[in-house]
């Protein structure tokens, strides 16, 4: 279950904005989903290991060998705002 206050906190963490009138509906919607999810609470999971990955993978490491970088033109080509040399963003301090 999640209330309007938590919804606003989560939206802020996720850098999402909710119109005032959408906050409570979002809380209700998420709560109904969480209501179903919380059925997991009924399970006894004492001592059950968590699974992050299902298939055993040996986890091969990368040798410290360089591949060519992107050209700066290509690197910047998809940026909404950029100078000749870098990516432009509003200053965090501003």
């Amino acid at each position, binding site marked *: 279950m999640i209330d309007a206050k938590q919804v606003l906190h989560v939206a802020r963490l996720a850098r999402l904005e909710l119109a005032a009138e959408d906050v409570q509906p979002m809380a209700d919607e998420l709560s109904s989903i969480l209501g179903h999810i919380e059925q997991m609470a009924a399970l006894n999971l004492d001592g059950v290991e968590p699974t992050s990955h299902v298939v055993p993978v040996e986890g091969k490491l*990368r040798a410290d060998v360089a591949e060519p970088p992107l050209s700066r033109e290509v*690197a910047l080509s998809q940026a909404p705002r950029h100078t000749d*040399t870098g990516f432009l963003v*509003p200053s965090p*301090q501003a």
Partner: protein
Amino acid sequence: MSVDDYEITIGLEIHVQLATKTKMFSPIETYFGAEPNTLVGPVDLGLPGTLPVPNAQAIHYGIMLGLAFNCEIADRLVFHRKNYFYPDLPKGYQISQFDEPLCGPGNFGGVRVHRVHLEEDAAKLTHAGASGRIQGSESSVVDFNRGGTALAEIVTEPDIHSAEQASEWLRLLRTTVRQLGVSDVNMEEGSLRCDANISIAPKGATELGAKTELKNMNSFRFIERGIRAEVARQAAILDAGGTVEQETLHFDPRTEAITSMRSKEDAHDYRYFPEPDMVPVVVTAEMVDKAKAAMPELPHEREERFIALGVEQGAARQMSWQPELGDLFEEALKTDGAPANAKAVAALITNELVARLGDGDLSDSKATPASLAQLVALTADGKVSSSGARTVLDKLVEGGGDPAAIIESEGLGAIGGGDELTPIIQAALDANPDVAEKLKGGDMKPIGVIIGAVMKETRGRADGKEVTKIARGLLGL
């Protein structure tokens, strides 16, 4: 109360850029000073669909650090995501380690090491002033060259109790890391960065005061000054009956001002969770053995070895923390007979030679290791007086050469036998009857006058003890 009435407690968090060829999770080369955004690949920009693959060499270096700090090495390497939004963070999360660091508790230079973990560096954000695009708003430019560089984060326990101890320990850390060859630990280039967690409490107080985190001090001087300034700030607050707020602070070395970095924006909830794009890496015995085999002699080990040779602790530390001095010392000891004089050779290097170098370094001196060993030997055999030896060292540093030859040419040979000295001493006594009287009366204080006169006459080639001995004889004492 004054600052001295407080118990100071300091823990350090050090970020070291590892000297790998490529980045932590991306096969792109990284080095300091390249043109902005010319060392970036798809992974470094967090392009959609790209995936991180850990750099084996970075893990190898991480294990070496753990061994150097006598840490426990974990048997598996697990990465987590640390989620937050910032322009220097291309994926909206930093890949770091959370509850399973590569290296567990350790101990180094008298300070307990809490953990050492691996992570990726952030990109570089530069303020660009007002940009035309958005009316009246300030812009910054992001350069992703540094982004993704392999970092080791070293976290100590709060075992440091003064600014001086902090910077001394950091010097040992830097020398050690450089010796290991896992980083060039260059503070100017940001490959060694330090945060300090500082708290103070009245001496004898049972619980610690609130701690503040002083961020990113990028030189040893700043660290020392920053910590002093923060300790003073906290003491002033407590003296005024206030309470220290737990917060993150920034020290401005120019103004000595300490300012809060608290950003109202961030509700610090990093939502750590296991990085789902990677599987845990098993740290095998082979990997640890490979790291052990790659370990060089570390400064504290070298210091102990020097002390075992009879060198004084201060000189031994100085020669191990400044490896070039240690190397000169070990070269000198290869000269015949030198090992017997190890202590004196070390003293000559760390006192006399270093004093003559001033701000310069060893390459400015022309004195060969062997010549230093020979000079010490000649002094020990009384072939030259200690004051004469200093003059010889001056010549060696300036022009090099052979000490014996210099003694000869400069006529600095010590006067051994009494028969040559006795008339000179007698003359000095005759010239100073009042002094002679006092000496006869058993008051040896004014003997300096006689020695001085003899030295003047012999241009410093006489030995003070010898002069005193002969003078007493002449006076029938």
